């Protein structure tokens, strides 16, 4: 097991080197000029050149690249110009914000989509099946910012049930001491239950928005996978043997149908993590998606590079976890590097 993990991690090294080179070149190929942008509206040519020299952007590309790799080797991802902070510190504080939101959204989505998918598969063509199809299609067709704004409008503006969409915490709460970076966990560790409630209240609407959006792939995959498994011989045998419906559907069929669902979950999770920029914008959520987009708009190289690198590492780890899960779910799956 351990050697498998090590082997897989070693294999990821060339991928990461490729990512470093490509992101470096791509960010340099961006059309904007960070020096002109950050010299401010009243800057003259001379001022822009001064800023360029201060940023080290007057050096030739290979020199910049060597400096970048050298910094990287020392664990320094550089400084963001838009926010003025070290990229590493920003990613460290923003990744948990995004991860907490995405995980909660995913759990919410799973708890609706998987039962819905199973139900739809057991009775294909029934009302439940149609409801499943309509709900998921509607969810995925609504753009997330639209769903988000509608939820804010109804639950905050009209009804006043949800708290103000002001990010991770209400203005009058201060963040718990950072242990995991997940406010829900950290507030419980600190024993502050009102803080936990406040953090959860802020999470509900954005998580719901994400859940609505990600219902479709999970429910559809569950349904398709369940359908094929339910049609297979061993299910017929199980039914013929007079096992209860529950045992047949959940114990036999669902367990075998889980592999593609897990693959989909992994994909949906990593997709949501990077792509929930719009949800972050709507709810003023200090996550990594909006961070990367803002940096991109300002041609701010360091955060873009840091973001892509982080996402690449996340993908590698996520894929590893999913592969390991395969082995747990289905012992027949052999994990080879």
């Amino acid at each position, binding site marked *: 097991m351990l050697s498998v993990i090590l082997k897989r991690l070693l294999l990821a090294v060339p991928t990461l080197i490729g990512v470093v080179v490509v992101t470096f070149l791509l960010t340099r190929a961006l059309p904007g000029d960070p020096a002109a942008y950050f010299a401010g509206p009243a800057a003259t040519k001379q001022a822009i050149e001064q800023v360029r020299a201060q940023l080290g952007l007057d050096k030739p590309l290979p020199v910049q690249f060597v400096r970048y790799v050298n910094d990287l080797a020392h664990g320094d991802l550089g400084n963001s110009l*838009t926010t003025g902070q070290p990229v590493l510190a920003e990613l460290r504080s923003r990744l948990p914000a995004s991860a907490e939101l995405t995980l909660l959204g995913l759990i919410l989505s799973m708890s609706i989509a998987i039962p819905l998918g199973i139900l739809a598969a057991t009775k294909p063509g029934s009302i439940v099946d149609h409801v499943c199809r309509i709900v998921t299609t509607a969810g995925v067709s609504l753009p997330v910012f639209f769903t988000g704004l509608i939820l804010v409008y109804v639950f905050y503006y009209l009804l006043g049930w949800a708290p*103000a969409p002001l*990010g991770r915490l209400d203005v009058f709460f201060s963040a718990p001491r950072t242990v995991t970076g997940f406010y829900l966990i950290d507030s419980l560790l600190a024993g502050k239950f009102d803080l936990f409630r406040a953090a959860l209240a802020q999470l509900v609407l954005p998580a719901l928005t994400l859940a609505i959006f990600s219902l479709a792939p999970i429910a559809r995959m569950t349904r398709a996978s369940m359908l094929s498994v339910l049609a297979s011989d061993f299910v017929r045998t199980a039914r013929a043997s007079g096992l209860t419906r529950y045992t047949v559907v959940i114990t036999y069929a669902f367990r075998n149908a889980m592999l593609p669902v897990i693959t989909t979950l992994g994909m949906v999770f990593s997709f949501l993590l990077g792509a929930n920029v719009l949800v972050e914008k*709507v709810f*003023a959520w200090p996550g990594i998606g909006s961070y990367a987009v803002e940096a991109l708009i300002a041609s701010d190289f360091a955060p873009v590079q840091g973001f892509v690198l982080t996402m690449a590492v996340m993908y590698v780890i996520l894929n590893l976890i999913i592969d390991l899960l395969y082995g747990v779910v289905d012992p027949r799956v052999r994990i080879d590097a």
Partner: protein
Amino acid sequence: MKRRDFLKSSSAAVASAAISMPAVFSPAKAQARNETLLIVSESGPNNLDIHGVGTNVPGYEVSWNTYDRLISHEMKTGPSGQPYYDKNKFKMELADDMNVGDMSVTFKLKKNATFQDGTPVTAKDVKWSLDRAVTVGGFPTFQMRAGSLTKAEQFVVVDDNTIRIDFLKKDRLTIPDLAVVVPAIYNSELVKKNVTEKDPWGLEYTKLNTVGSGAFKVTSWTAGSEVVLERNDDWKGGELPKIKRVIWRMVPSAGNRRALLERGDADISYELPNKDFVELKDAGKLNIISTPFSNGIQYLGMNVKNPPFDNPKVRQAVAYAVPYQKIMDAVLFGLGKPMFGDKNNTAEEAVWPQPHGYNADIEKAKALMVEAGYANGFDTTLSFDLGFATVNEPMAVLIQESLGQIGIRTTINKIPGANFRTELNKKVLPLYLNVFSGWLDYPEYFFIWCYHGNNSIFNTMSYQSKDMDALIDGAVTAAATGDQASYEKDVKGFVDLAFADLPRIPLYQPYSNVAMQKNVSGYAYWFHRRLDYRTFSKA
């Protein structure tokens, strides 16, 4: 089935428990709310120090409220009754007394003034801070240069409490330039403890820490999401502010900023789309204050070096084709001050900005196109900054449509924010929309930047005219020597010439719009157009 039931019921329980949370404040928090100002805006600072490399505009707001300058401005009543900085009247901030001589100005410092860490403010700190502003490079140095403040030798410590600033030449803008955001006074001893060889001015330290003597200090800053400021109870620069705490949250979605205001959760917001401001104003639940940008104009620029816009007749044809009133109504919803439709193109008064005499007149425009030899029209591109797309995009479409009627076929070129300035600086865009506004509110200041043949980056048209240069230089000299008669003659002269030659077509003066709750008062308009927390109060 049990498993599914469990999943369903547990997720429903989570959702309902959270949603039924009351959004009310406990009494203790309500108390705090009265002395706390909650501001929401689109973007926040990237640096707490205006001397920093690439500090953005929200960063100016932090600097303004956390640092003192030697002098500041008195207030007068603005165009719609709001307090408005008086460009001609100065008030002492860190200085106790200002004595303007022929070739120098001497300041005595307030004796009891201290920095936020308790150390007294001395003339040495003032000199160090001004030295820093003129040598650190980038924006602060260039802003100082606008007031002929360029050398460290100009700042002389007379004694612990007195500092003299020597003039290199007579310049009317020197004193006003000491009251802008840049010449803030820093706690030099504290910064010196945190300098490194690579960073002799301690920019890395002041980026994250406010080390002034100002009315507020930053107690926490999470870049991109929140800034919290607390009042400095020992402030000596003026009357103690009524607000104890300022929480400034970044809310990127304009719709949510509006919702927060309407629900009463946020106290103040700016940077809302014009349409929202008009609707909020009509609803009447909030105080909306709109003030024209001082010395700022949105304009349609043309590259006068290259055909076809090198021909003044073509430029005039464009000026007669622009649908000014439609822009005011459909794009700005009336939130702008027209810079068109005067009875003629002659300046009656020596003021700037003032409207020109062009009006939408398609027939006249067509005739001018024929005269210019472009009876069949031509193709060109119209560029704008996507960063301000809510205003620029509809405006560009309206202009495109009107220009089409006189045969000018335009392709709209949207340029992302980071790239716009780069493109503009190349001075090759044939036709573009842009805004210029100057901190110092003097006609000659605007014209030096935008029309003078020394070709600053704001002369985006590459306009060259010996007559124009002579008039601008004349006005600068006349202002320095106090020759009012020739000053007025020269100002009227260059305004007339700008309207006759028309390298750029002024469209309107944009408004700075601020929306706040009815119980919030004390908003004042400043040349930097950001909020001054010191005058606010909450009922």
